[in-house]
């Protein structure tokens, strides 16, 4: 092999970089559960659980636009139930524990929504 030193160094750097998804995770903890505590005895949120898990950000975004830009404060869910569009009075009425609910997934997945630039984080006196 020509320039063996440089080539071997290059190959080592290449392997270290390419396997990084496998070893980077070992620097911290494992992640086996989200650890969220769903509130109360309710089985469903505004929509069903699968929808809420995947699409809650879209719902919240639509609610913001409906309430603040179109002044429409009623939302009719897929099952026909009427909801008042309000983060503070509808969502946070049940989901009152920020630390055990929102934060659990959002911090782990590094999702940083800007809800709390206007709204008050539940359970904090700000």
């Amino acid at each position: 092999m020509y320039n063996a030193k440089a080539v071997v160094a290059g190959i080592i750097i290449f392997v270290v970089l390419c396997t990084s998804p496998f070893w980077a995770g070992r620097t911290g903890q494992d992640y086996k559960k989200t650890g969220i505590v769903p509130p109360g005895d309710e089985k469903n949120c505004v929509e069903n659980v699968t929808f809420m898990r995947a699409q809650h950000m879209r719902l919240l975004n639509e609610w913001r636009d409906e309430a603040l830009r179109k002044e429409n404060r009623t939302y009719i869910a897929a099952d026909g139930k009427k909801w008042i569009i309000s983060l503070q009075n509808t969502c946070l009425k049940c989901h009152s524990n920020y630390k055990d609910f929102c934060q659990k997934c959002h911090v782990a997945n590094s999702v940083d929504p800007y809800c709390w630039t206007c709204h008050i984080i539940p359970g904090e006196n700000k």
Partner: protein
Amino acid sequence: MFSSLLLVLLIGAVAWAGAAAGFASLFGAALPYAATVIFIVGMIRRMTYWATSPVPFCIPTTAGQEQSLAFIRQAKIDCPSSSAGVFARMFLEVACFRSLFRNTRASVRGRDSATAGLSIVYYSSKWLWFFALVFHYCFLLVFIRHFRFFMEPAPSCISFLESLDGIMQTGSPRFFWTGALLLIALLFLLGRRIFNERLRYISLLNDYFPLWLLIGIAGTGVCLRYFDKTDIATVKIFIMGVTHFAPVSPEGIAPLFFVHITLVCALLLYLPFSKLAHMAGVFFSPTRNLRADSRRTRRINPWNPPKQYFTYAEYEDAYRDAMAEAGLPLEKQPDKSAG
């Protein structure tokens, strides 16, 4: 072009059908392991193959004044005569794509008044350089951003990167520039092959296939984020299981996620055997990694066999008597007493 598109769609459809039919862990866990191993082994084989191939000639590309007399200014980066110069040139090539920056485009421009013939003009053409740079850097940033799925807790530098990437705070989930720019750059690189007739003429399946594959990867990624969403907390649990070699059940993850993973695996499997191996190949390219000092140092071809020399002294030793007989001038006269 269409066959490569069909190939990518077929891979995606197989992954979708497989995930929907209950083979999700095959596409989500077994395939990534196999693809990673083949990718790494394949690239190492490719690199050792290059490293064991001798370079017979000193063939660096020169794009400036070679080192010469002291009063002639040398282009130290474009025609490097030292290892530091080679390093600087390689670094700028890898980080800034300087050779693409020099791209020109020839066009025929009206009549030349001096020669009364058509005149050809070489204009600088920066589009390829620009979109290639956009593509590569966005791809890098997108790759780095994915480490939020590989690490717990997600490191703060990644959160910082995301806040920059989504600085416009558009929509929810926040719109990331890199994802969109990646797709735009890929579409340019594809459009270039389709609409430039000279380029279309030389484009083959293995030019279109990686482009469609990358468009597929970026497209499914963008879809997963903005349109056909899946619960990323479950996805992270699944991915952490895979990276910790203890795969968990892929229950509740949308099939589109497995299409995304499978296309990435297809890229990894394809990469060492394709032109995409230029990611390592650029460092082995003799036109880039040699010093332009062919006039100062003698370069010996490594595969030259050992030379058989026959000097004049040896020649005379062999034919001295015959040469003396023929009356030829000799450096050393034959030994009379022996004769």
